[in-house]
């Protein structure tokens, strides 16, 4: 149980002298609260596994420090750090029974047998592994094996955090859902800090109360799922989270107005005069853009196709070379292949060089 602080932590696999742009993890400073459920979300190769391995000590950082409850544990080996980690593919000790597998991390630390048995029993109950406790672990299905791996991660009650490295990759979608709910329940039950790495936004948003989005070795935003949805701090977050992702459109912005192709869109906040030389874009989620019949006051776009998601329909439209997605309001039927777009000004954000610009209300 501990608060984890990362101080200026960075990792380069090709040495500390490598150019900063090549770092697998660019310097990051952040805090993980005791008892929190975190998700590290990002595409493959964005550095999330590196960050996880730095925390668990499998990788030693090129720069920076890791503090557990204010104590610098950077030089400590994995064994000496109080951390548990579950890997992408199930790791099973073949010669042991399920029970022995679960007891392994406790036995190695010389914990008394009675306590080991009690703890193994509790975890096995929580994970529905009790009927298998005396079975050899080798012949079980992939999801049962992964449950054992999860169990070994959770069995120690004193860990600073439990790290999950895409643990549900090998699990069937149906069971995935079950196991994820199970994990969420376990989090409530056991009061452990959990950090869950994934590239699947649904997984991240359903599991975590704080989602940390990574992109190209950087932490670009960390916040609740609602914050990430409503106010992405980076165009990448807008694009990566949500389905379809946020519309990012190049625009000229000054004061309360954004200009696309000469057409003016009103903004809720005042942006004054933005610095020259930066790439200015506006971002708006498809949920906050409605298609309407073409009219002179509206930005007009060419309709390419309609995606029917059942409860909601999205129109894929094009303005010049920029593609957008927009909501088709219920009851609206499209005629012809052009439409007007209505923006909801409260949900239009402005980005300079991909970073959110805070306007003045």
């Amino acid at each position, binding site marked *: 149980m501990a608060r984890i602080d990362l101080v200026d932590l960075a990792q380069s696999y090709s040495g500390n002298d490598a150019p900063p742009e090549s770092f697998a993890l660019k310097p990051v400073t952040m805090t993980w609260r005791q008892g929190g459920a975190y998700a590290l979300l990002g595409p493959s190769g964005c550095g999330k596994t590196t960050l996880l391995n730095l925390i668990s000590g499998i990788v030693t950082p090129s720069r920076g420090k890791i503090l557990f409850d204010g104590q610098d544990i950077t030089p400590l080996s994995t064994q000496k750090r109080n*951390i548990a980690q579950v890997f992408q593919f199930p*790791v099973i000790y073949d010669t042991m029974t399920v029970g022995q597998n679960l007891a392994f*991390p406790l036995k190695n630390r010389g914990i008394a047998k009675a306590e080991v048995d009690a703890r193994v029993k509790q975890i096995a109950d929580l994970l529905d592994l009790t009927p298998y406790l*005396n*079975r050899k672990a*080798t012949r079980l299905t992939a999801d049962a094996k992964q449950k054992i791996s999860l169990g070994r991660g959770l069995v120690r009650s004193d860990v600073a955090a439990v790290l999950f490295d895409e643990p549900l990759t090998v699990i069937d979608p149906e069971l995935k859902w079950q196991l994820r709910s199970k994990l969420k329940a376990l989090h409530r039950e056991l009061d452990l800090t959990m950090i869950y790495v994934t590239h699947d936004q649904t997984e991240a948003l359903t599991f975590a109360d704080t989602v940390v989005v990574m992109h190209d070795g950087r932490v670009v935003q960390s916040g609740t799922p609602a914050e990430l949805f409503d106010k992405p701090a980076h165009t990448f977050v807008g694009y990566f989270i949500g389905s379809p992702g946020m519309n990012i459109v190049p625009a000229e912005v000054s004061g309360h107005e954004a200009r696309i192709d000469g057409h003016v869109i009103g903004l809720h906040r005042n942006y004054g005069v933005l610095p020259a030389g930066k790439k200015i874009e506006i971002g708006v989620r498809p949920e906050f853009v409605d298609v309407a019949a073409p009219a002179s006051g509206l930005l007009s776009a060419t309709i390419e196709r309609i995606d029917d998601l059942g409860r909601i329909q999205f129109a894929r439209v094009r303005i010049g070379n920029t593609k957008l997605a927009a909501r088709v309001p219920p009851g609206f039927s499209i005629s012809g292949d052009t439409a007007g777009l209505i923006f909801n000004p409260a949900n239009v954000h402005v980005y300079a060089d991909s970073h959110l610009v805070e306007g003045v209300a």
Partner: protein
Amino acid sequence: MDKTINQKAWFLVLPVFLVVAFSAVLPLMTVVNYSMQDTFGNNQFFWNGVGWFKELLDPSTDLGGRFLASLGRNLFFSAVILAIEVPLGIIVALSMPREGWSVAACLVILALPLLIPWNVVGTIWQIFGRPDIGLLGYVLNHLGFNYNYVSNEVDAWVTVIVMDVWHWTSLVALLCYAGLKSIPDAYYQAAQIDGASRWAVFKAIQLPKMNRVLLIAVLLRFMDSFMIYTEPFVVTGGGPGNSTTFVSIELVKIALGQFDLGKAAALSLVYNLIILIVCWVFYTVMTNAGSERPVKEGAA
């Protein structure tokens, strides 16, 4: 599903069948034929039924005595070299580097003894161990050890065993190394997280994952050492006395030295049968070792 029946498929099997027939089955049948007969040369043969086999298994006869004594020596030899080479091979494999240029260097060095022909290995050790001009023999005697593999039985045995260990431990080490390399990094990382000691990692991860290759290594080394001929023949010639005369050496003496084709044929059949049985037992035991046994409900 209905099976398609196509008798033409037999033609595809025919080449293999012919090759195996001429290379294995027919020569073996010739041996079976010899084993039932006696000859005094001159291509004259006399029917002897199972007489040779009876003699072979009766220690009071000359043939039986020689066979059983050499068989005992051979089994002892195989047991000793397995007991040395398997653990030693595992240790070598464990201490090899996992990556970098040194891997290639280690592999080449390990492979060197395996590339040397048997009789050359024998010759090397025959000279190496000589007390008058051999480096090993000379140095040992100089240090006060009365080492002479020509006159002392124990010295002869030690020489033959050390030679075999030198020649073949590499094979076990290479196989084990291949087994170790196939273990995903995640296992080691998980073991680190679980706080496993070096010994626990070996017992819980490395040894079980090497199971398969170790089976192959033990089988190969058993068969090879049980059939050993050239190396001890070159070094000790089976001596001093009969102390290092293994079954194969005895067989060659009977077949080519005395030209007792009937006895030799009977002996080689029994020899062959022993190897088959031992290998089958090994294989069955070791492949079943890792499989699940029924566990009593409620057992701890």
